């Protein structure tokens, strides 16, 4: 999640399209970065209870990735002026997820794909960790 946090900071600092044409999404990006950081700190603290670990390592990555695809489905329209909406969902996908420079994505093309990948890796590792912990505690209780 620290990697995802770094990516959100990178987007916030260098994505001129976001800051210029979609200030609300730009603000939301910083909120995402803050929650990424909090989730990373929680996971590094390795709490004993599964609630916070689940929230930080399972729920949050799912929410994060879902948020990106909701942006695509809504053609980047949520909270923005109609003039900056992508013409089609496909255009929005090429722009946001694939980082197509032909669609005017002006950051590293793999930025969002890397963020999604890191979130999914976190999700898998935490889910596996929770599963193994539960299996271990079941054995002890037996």
């Amino acid at each position: 999640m620290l990697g995802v946090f770094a990516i959100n900071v990178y987007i916030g600092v260098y994505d001129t399209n976001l800051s210029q044409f979609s200030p609300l999404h730009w603000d939301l990006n910083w909120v995402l970065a803050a929650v990424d950081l909090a989730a990373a700190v929680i996971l590094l603290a390795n709490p004993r209870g599964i609630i916070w670990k689940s929230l930080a390592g399972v729920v949050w990555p799912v929410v994060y990735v879902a948020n990106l695809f909701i942006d695509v489905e809504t053609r980047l329209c949520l909270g923005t002026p109609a003039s900056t909406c992508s013409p089609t969902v496909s255009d929005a996908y090429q722009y946001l997820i694939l980082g197509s420079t032909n669609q005017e994505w002006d950051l590293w093309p793999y930025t969002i794909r890397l963020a999604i990948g890191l979130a999914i890796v976190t999700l898998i590792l935490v889910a596996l960790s929770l599963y193994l912990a539960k299996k271990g505690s079941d054995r002890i209780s037996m």
Partner: protein
Amino acid sequence: MNFKTLAAVFAVLAVVFIATTGFLAATAGSASHTVTQTVTSTATTTANGSVSTSQGGTAIGIAYTKTLGFYLTNGTGWTLYLFTKDTPNSGLSTCYGQCETFWSPLQGSISSLFLPPGLNASSFGTITRTDGTKQITYEGWPLYYYLGDKAAGQTNGQNKDNTWFVVNVPSISVPSTTTSQTSSTSIASSTSTTSSSGYSPGY
């Protein structure tokens, strides 16, 4: 920092996130309204790619700055740009999709183009975009407005992504001030489509 503190931090951030999301949803309508007004006023000069004239044509102007030299604008001074990923005289634009939302094509008819003194009508032409609309070209380069320009005279798109540049034109006169603009005064009745002469983008 103990776990309870961390949990509290996370809870606060989660509340902030939810509140912000709710705020976004609640303000989306008003935000759109505010910006729509801006866009509407811009659209009269940009979305149609022209300045309304009594003859219903498209007006072209020329602006000048010390750093950029002479460059093309529309009739009310909104800067026009070229895209170096386009190929001049190819008759095609490569800017579609999300690109087109940031860089709107200068649309219009070549037969009703209003040009200022100093510009040659044969330098202008049109291409047909995939939606069937006509986009005006200069020296074969399709012309665009930039969404980031919020007022006439701005050149915020210059050198954007190293692919967007103002469209320099040959010097026509030495202006008396640092920044000046020549409005369209003459009518060109050109029927040419594209020019075959070479062109150096303004960078």
